[in-house]
């Protein structure tokens, strides 16, 4: 993508990424791409922090538009308007979101006739941007968080603590999606980070098939003891042919009512997106070339 724009735009290098300067120079505006930014924060915070740093008077922003990149990564875009040193300014910000970092794309122009083009350019850059993380990797996925439960993040895993935790020491753990093809390293990772059932002694188990709007699989239910106290463990494993999606409810015997929470959560899982080809064969060539008068 970037080589396609170089003939008409000037590429500038920075410690944390690159800048793109249009024909006519910086007075026409430009685009700044910052790679591998940390810490990764909620999308609301990323935009809020970025917007507050722009120092625009009379700031207004379009609603965040969720995007998917051609690699199947999540991204979001918004356009901010305001005045800077008396000039009406428009900035379009896009964030392309990795697992623990993000790329920020920031397009600006003071030329009102270019506002629409800049919006389109930043959006297309975000759509086409490559994080290069690879498709077949452990990833977070979308689901409806259990209402009233407190989400405790452990890297890509989220441990949802029951509303009365720790008095009610029920947990609902959502593990990252895993590619269906596993290696020995993956097996070790599961043992270290996901199925550390130390102290839980299953007494019996039962398996039920499960079908959700997007996935199929099963829930395996265990009854057993931990530290001499009865525990119930329900392990849901769903698949979409590419990834497996595993979640686990671990509850005391009287926490059996939480099974409905697990059922609702797995029903809400949205499979990871499938990478899509670019919307057009060479969108950036046209968009960038038309910038020049």
């Amino acid at each position: 993508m970037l080589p396609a724009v170089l003939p008409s735009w000037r590429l500038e290098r920075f410690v944390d990424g690159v800048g793109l300067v249009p024909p006519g120079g910086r007075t026409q505006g430009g685009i700044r791409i910052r790679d591998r930014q940390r810490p990764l924060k909620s999308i609301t915070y990323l935009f809020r922090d970025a917007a507050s740093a722009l120092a625009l008077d009379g700031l207004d922003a379009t609603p965040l538009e969720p995007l998917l990149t051609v690699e199947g990564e999540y991204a979001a875009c918004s356009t901010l308007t305001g005045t800077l040193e008396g000039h009406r300014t428009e900035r379009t910000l896009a964030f392309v979101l990795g697992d623990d970092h993000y790329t920020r794309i920031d397009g600006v122009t003071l030329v009102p006739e270019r506002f629409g083009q800049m919006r389109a350019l930043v959006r297309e850059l975000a759509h086409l941007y490559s994080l290069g993380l690879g498709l077949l990797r452990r990833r977070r996925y979308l689901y409806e968080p259990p209402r009233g439960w407190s989400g405790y993040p452990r890297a890509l895993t989220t441990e949802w603590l029951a509303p009365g935790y720790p008095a009610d020491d029920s947990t609902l753990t959502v593990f990252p999606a895993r590619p269906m093809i596993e290696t020995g390293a993956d097996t070790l990772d599961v043992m270290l980070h996901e199925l550390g059932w130390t102290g839980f002694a299953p007494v019996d188990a039962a398996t039920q098939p499960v079908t959700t709007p997007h996935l199929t699989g099963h829930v395996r239910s265990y009854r057993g003891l931990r530290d001499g106290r009865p525990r119930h463990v329900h392990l849901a494993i769903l698949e979409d042919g590419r990834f497996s999606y595993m979640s686990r409810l671990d509850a005391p015997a009287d926490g059996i009512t939480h099974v409905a929470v697990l059922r609702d959560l797995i029903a809400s899982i949205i499979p990871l997106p499938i990478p899509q080809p670019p919307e057009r064969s060479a969108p950036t060539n046209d968009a960038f070339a038309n910038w020049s008068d």
Partner: protein
Amino acid sequence: MRLALTAPAIADVALVWGPLRPGPDDTARWATEVLAAELPAGARVDVHGFEARTTTTGWPYDVVVGVVVVDERVVQARLAACYRFLEYAGAALAIAPTVDVLDAARPVLLAAFATGRPDWGADGTVVCLRDLVVPRS
């Protein structure tokens, strides 16, 4: 990630709490450090008491009480709550100008401390993918 408290404003008492930190190896030493936070110049803190408690939902925490001394004169009274939330820890600190003021406020402070809980998603911490895709209200 921050400590969350439900606490009313208390006259003449400053109550502060903040982000979570990794759980300390030595909780008693950490509690003393919390009580001694931002001491005035030339001051020391004398610890007068230490009590293990649990919040209303069962999170363990220690209450530590003491005074700040400058030139052998008590200049502040302090009461701290030091919580342990799984692998993290959080603290709240109440500062009063005198022991009498702190004693009068103690029931309200202890009730507030009992509401302590972790807010894992505070300050934009990503709890799950939804935080990256769906704007928070």
